[in-house]
């Protein structure tokens, strides 16, 4: 029987916070658990097989958190899973009522806005990278080798795909905020 499961790019496949939280919850319900969330967890996540458990996960993006941030969550019974980039991950085991960290409309909107801001930043970087590579291809293609040209084309396609993906996520979260 498999005791370990490796998932690549988990956070890239589920960029919307609630999708990522629900996916981790489903994994735990099927007995797949993560011990810690680390900086590289958005790229690779290792799950260990155990007993199925009902966990509520919380994805909380914060560029800056004051020193009482972690202790506030811990007082409420949340277990700190770790951080990947600016995302703090929390979980809480439950039986009946599903626990919530954000209990009013304002704080849900505020969390979504923080996520949109971070996604917009990455979106701009990817778009700029695609633009810079396109300029290099258009204006300097005579001076670069066929191999380098191919790499630039692949780079442009890669960054455009990422920008489209992040743009879609921004729209999705924005739509969710309006609702």
């Amino acid at each position, binding site marked *: 029987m498999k005791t370990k499961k490796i998932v690549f790019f988990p956070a890239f496949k589920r960029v919307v916070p609630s999708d990522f939280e629900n996916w981790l919850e489903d994994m735990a319900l099927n007995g797949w658990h993560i011990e810690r969330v680390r900086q590289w967890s958005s790229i690779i996540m290792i799950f260990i097989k155990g007993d199925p458990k009902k966990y509520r996960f919380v994805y909380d993006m914060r560029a800056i958190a004051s020193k*009482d941030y972690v202790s*506030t969550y811990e007082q409420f019974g949340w277990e700190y899973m770790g951080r990947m980039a600016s995302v703090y991950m929390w979980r809480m085991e439950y039986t009946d009522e599903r626990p919530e960290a954000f209990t009013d409309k304002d704080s849900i909107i505020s969390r979504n806005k923080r996520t949109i801001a971070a996604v917009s930043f990455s979106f701009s970087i990817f778009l700029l990278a695609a633009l810079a590579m396109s300029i290099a291809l258009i204006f300097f293609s005579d001076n670069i080798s066929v191999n380098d040209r191919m790499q630039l084309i692949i780079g442009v396609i890669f960054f455009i795909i990422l920008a489209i993906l992040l743009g879609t996520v921004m729209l999705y979260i924005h739509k969710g905020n309006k609702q």
Partner: protein
Amino acid sequence: MDEEKAVKKYLPMTETMFFILLSLQQEHHGYGIMQHVKQITNNRIILGAGTIYNSLSRLEKDGLIKVLSEEDRRKIYISTALGRKILKVEAKRLVELYENAKTLLEEPI
């Protein structure tokens, strides 16, 4: 933040803000606020950690509450004079709302 700006920013107040500010007329830490609000609303409102953290950060930044002390990385907060003023303005608004609603209900259909 001056009173006029605070009134514009916080009124009408959300239930969450109202009860947090009301709880902080006495000193409390984040978890203590949740317990107090749960008690005075007969378990109707149970504030989450993220909501409390966001609200406290915002209220502190705008000068409606302040940190009284820190124990084991836990901050103990209390309302400032500005916070109390804003809460009273909101309370007056709610009383006015209540009086008007009452008049409406007393009128024959």
